[in-house]
């Protein structure tokens, strides 16, 4: 089966703008918001969302990254992964509303690991999940709060998110 593009550049940017509005709406403003992206592309998306939220609400939103490698439960099933840096904004996460940002939600295992990683850093008041693509096939009881697009997929298919900052192109493709 061939590879087809399911989201183009304009679709991605529209989806992110909508998520930014939804985050502000559900949080009733930008107070106490902290965005944490999950490496690699979640960090890029986190920074874009922070910029959008700052533009809409006219206040700057702390943004950082949260590496989950050391908390994964499937390390022994893959060649050794290299951890990525974790950067927590200076204000910390205690008592904050943390929004985890990732590109694709699949099994839910990265998010489970992210929740454990958060625990070792502090105690947020609320944790939310923003995702660009939800492709289904969850293996754990985890659901996103903000979704860019639901893309039904077969387990064997590959959903590939490419972003300008990481890949020099901007699109979401699905294929074998």
């Amino acid at each position: 089966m061939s590879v087809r593009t399911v989201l183009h550049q304009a679709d991605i940017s529209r989806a992110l703008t909508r998520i930014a509005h939804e985050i502000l709406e559900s949080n009733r403003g930008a107070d106490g918001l902290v965005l944490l992206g999950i490496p690699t592309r979640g960090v890029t998306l986190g920074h874009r969302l922070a910029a959008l939220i700052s533009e809409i609400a006219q206040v700057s939103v702390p943004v950082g990254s949260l590496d989950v490698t050391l908390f994964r439960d499937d390390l022994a099933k893959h060649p050794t992964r290299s951890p990525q840096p974790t950067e927590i904004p200076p204000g910390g996460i205690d008592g904050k509303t943390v929004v985890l940002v990732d590109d694709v939600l699949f099994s839910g295992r990265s998010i489970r690991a992210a929740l454990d990683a958060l625990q070792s850093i502090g105690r947020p008041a609320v944790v939310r999940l923003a995702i660009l693509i939800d492709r289904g096939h969850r293996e754990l009881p985890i659901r996103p709060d903000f979704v860019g697009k639901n893309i039904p997929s077969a387990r064997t298919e590959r959903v590939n998110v490419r972003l300008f900052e990481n890949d020099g192109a901007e699109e979401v493709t699905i294929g074998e």
Partner: protein
Amino acid sequence: MRHLLDTRTLDRATALRILDVAEDMADTQSREVKKLPTLRGKTVVNLFFEDSTRTRISFEAAAKRLSADVINFAAKGSSVSKGESLKDTAQTLEAIGADAVVVRHPGSGAPQTLATSGWISAGVVNAGDGTHEHPTQALLDAFTIRKRRFGADSRGRDLSGLRVTIVGDVLHSRVARSNVWLLTTLGAEVTLVSPPTLVPQNVSLWPVRVVYDLDEALAEGPDAVMMLRIQLERMNAAYFPTEREYSRRWGLDARRVAALPGGSIVLHPGPMNRGLEISSEAADSPRSTVLEQVSNGVSVRMAVLYLLLAGERDDERGGDL
């Protein structure tokens, strides 16, 4: 990575990978909860046939921070003192279910034997063998030099252009050997300073320069000065006339430290013989990285255990790293 036996055969990419993972490990050690679940269910055996405080404690801390189970085995008070061979000890560890064996042994090459003999399937980490190598010490020294030089910007960098002077008992020092290989692989220029009696015979084959006068070497303004411990327990011959003379000619005192250029640092692998190879003023000066080396040691050993144990086993895939 299957084993870590030496730094001589460690290539630049692998060395940098260990140092970069150690950066991530160091970051986690400033968190509220320092313990990571990464190696839950793995067993690490510290197999020490020779006395050690900091290396053993450092490996133990590293394994525990990663949630591995740790079994400490010291040759004194064990069946080794009843005459058990390395092979039988190794097979016992295999039967216990060790995933990694951290071994220190007075015989050069013992970790290599353990890793290649087929007695055990566990990963082997050399924690110092005879006068051969002590790879994790060299890695933590390189990490410390890089961290002091580049700070938060350390990831991915090597030590190109940096000049490191290693001073003291090179002959008996596995730390010096491991550092010579690793530091040159990472692009640093290494100078050895030592009394002629404590320079190994084959040193002309090493990628280093040898100087016999400490003041001459320090006048060149090295970026890092690494003081080696005088290993009195290995000295069964007269290598220098008196301790006082050694200390005067090759010891790092306050005057010599003060003459170093601004950014230079002083390393010592410990334990220090204060007043012999290093004076108290030098050991406690702001240039001294002795305590940083200890905490960096935990991060580096966490990185090594992670790379050895966390991923799918290499032998099951036939790849390296």
